[in-house]
């Protein structure tokens, strides 16, 4: 049902110039060529900045070091060392717990914010600005702020909640909670912003026709809003997930990785900066990259059909 209601808003593949032999469209540039021209600046800039350091890191990860001193080629030794280190798995565990809890909460709260921001009501302008405030505060500062608020001294949250000397940051479990809490506070607006923009592109007549069909508020949300919002939701979830998987500032400033709050990126940072071992640090980076990319690609596959509908199929056939 949803699909049929949705059709007007959906890109439909009404045959365009790309099919068959590339038809030269004015000025001698076919759409296919135009596609390449459009894509290349982005690809070239990204490749120029990112390709070298990534390849460099991968090559480094194959060499063994004592601190900064190279001691020879090690093949997969660094990877074996990482995969057999309990700290690696502990940080994977924390990173996953952090990602799942914070992204879920951010999605729900962000969606709520977006639906609210999308409505017309008195004081809407102020509310919209207010909702974005947490997100525009630099992360390092937000982290310090939540440290002060949660910490026993001066004990701001404790005094507001009347909790005495409750040690939020100084015990297992609650330490994780505070980091997740701060992240949700900080980044739910990001999700809200993306979803709000997504809501804006849903044509009003889609709602109208659903209303005429007798769909209630909930049904409209479930069968009209959500499916149409799916691409925006997926993009928001994708970037929240890959960012959460690489979380660094919040646990670093708030707990310094104590009480099981050491994230993968903190481990990477340790071996790149604090106790430099270029080979091992690069191996940990590469492993992090593989984990994050693996999860990212799942999202891309889910997204793919919505984004490249039509021409992607054609391209795939060749």
């Amino acid at each position, binding site marked *: 049902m949803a699909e049929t209601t949705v059709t007007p808003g959906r890109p439909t593949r009404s045959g365009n110039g790309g099919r068959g032999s590339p038809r030269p469209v004015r000025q001698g*540039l*076919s759409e*296919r*060529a135009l596609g*390449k*021209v459009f*894509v*290349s*600046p982005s690809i*070239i*800039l990204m490749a*120029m900045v990112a390709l070298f350091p990534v390849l460099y890191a991968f090559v480094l990860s194959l060499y063994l070091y004592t*601190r*900064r*001193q190279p001691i020879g080629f090690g093949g997969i030794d660094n990877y074996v060392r990482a995969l057999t280190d309990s*700290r690696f798995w502990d940080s994977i565990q924390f990173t996953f717990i952090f990602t799942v809890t914070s992204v879920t909460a951010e999605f729900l709260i962000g969606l709520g914010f977006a639906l609210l921001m999308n409505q017309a009501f008195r004081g809407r302008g102020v509310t919209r600005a207010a909702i974005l405030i947490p997100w525009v505060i630099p992360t390092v500062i937000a982290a310090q702020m939540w440290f002060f608020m949660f*910490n*026993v*001294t*001066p*004990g701001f949250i404790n005094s507001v909640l009347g909790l005495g*000397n409750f*040690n939020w*940051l*100084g*015990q*297992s479990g609650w330490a994780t909670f505070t980091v997740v809490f701060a992240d949700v506070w900080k980044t739910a607006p990001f999700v809200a912003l993306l979803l709000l923009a997504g809501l804006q592109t849903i044509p009003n007549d889609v709602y109208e026709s659903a209303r005429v069909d007798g769909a209630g508020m909930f049904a409209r949300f479930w069968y009209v809003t959500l499916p149409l919002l799916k691409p925006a939701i997926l993009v928001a979830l994708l970037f929240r997930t890959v960012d959460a998987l690489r979380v660094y500032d919040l646990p670093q400033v708030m*707990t*310094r*990785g*104590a*009480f099981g709050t050491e994230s993968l990126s903190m481990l990477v940072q*340790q071996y790149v*900066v*604090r*106790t*430099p071992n270029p080979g091992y640090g690069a191996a940990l980076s590469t492993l992090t990259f593989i984990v994050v990319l693996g999860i990212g690609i799942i999202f891309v596959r889910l997204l793919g059909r919505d984004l490249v509908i039509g021409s992607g199929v054609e391209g795939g056939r060749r």
Partner: protein
Amino acid sequence: MKSYKSWLASGGVLALLAVAACTPGTGDDEDGEMVWAIGGSEAQPGGIHQRIAEMWSEQNPDNPIRIEVLPEAADQQREQQALELQAGGSGFDVLGVDVIWTGEYSENDWLESLEDVRAEIEAVTLPGPFESATWGGELWAAPYNSNAGFLYYRTDLVDTPPTTWEEMCEVATSAAEEEGIAGFVGQGARYEGFVVNWLEYYWSNGGELYNEDQTQVTFDTAAAAEVTEFMNENLDTCFAPGFNTAQEEEARNEFQGGNAVFMRNWPYAYALIEDDEGSPANGNFDVAPLPTFTGDGTISALGGFNNAVSAFSNNTEAAKDFVVWAATNEEVQTMLATEASLPPTMASVYDDPALAGDPVMALLGDVLGDARARPPSPAWNEISVEMQNNLFPAYNGDADINTAVENVRTFLEGTID
């Protein structure tokens, strides 16, 4: 076939980069001016490092020196220096190096050896700070300023400062109960400061990390387990709530706010509490040497910064002159104490009658002689991280203490080759 269009587009980006590349970068000066890379509050305009640099520049107009202000956090200072040095850059001539970086920098061949001026420096410098500037029997930096921990206590609640840690906790617990405040605060969060605090307990319990020339591990697991146990037992009683998330400033706030009887902290807190007229501790506190477990003497971990000469400097000789001058010139060293409350490394300064009236400098003069440097080994950062990873959960009751100290011992053994 149409790829030439893509190349056109890429050419645009390349051009952009090329323009960027032509913008001259800052860095290498060939005119004899030296750069001193140092961070912290005293490196800011008006700070003592700036004034010392100006003084040098006036006296040596051919080789003036200016400061590149590094960030506030020591980790970031080290990172910025490391990036420049790793690239072999001559952007820095003189490096302000934390006492624990000496070995690492020398292992990477980032420093010019100061062996040829060793005698000059050794003659006037306190032994602890001097040791912190050497590695592998060679002098790599000129001591500049030092630091040591004090026991701050409330004179209205405590009659005489305790001499053992156990006594401190007994007094703290009973006084704290009476007053409804906490007993003791220190640096208990998981960071370098915790390692410093732990080492002070451990050393004062007769423990050591390495033998004299650092060729053998002499780590005493029994003594280590004892002091970790001590921390664990007192975590909910004598130690203030939030001890395990406290760094220097959290501890100071707690003590300055009148919420603790005792505090382990660096000398910097003294003047701040004295200036705070609203503080319950103001006028009611004093400083004493840190207690020990044996009841004899005192032991503190050394802090502070030394000045090293970058191996990539284009001005090695002048830079060397500068670091020697800053370490051995009585006027410079006295300025550190009188104008910035930074503990000098030059022994004779502490006998200066001008400092006699200063309780902080007087006590520093007493304790610096017995203060001990963390081994400035190239592996120190790794050792510190390992100690944090094992001992922190252990004292918080999240890991087995005996396993933790065994792990530390094993790791230390791995650093000897």
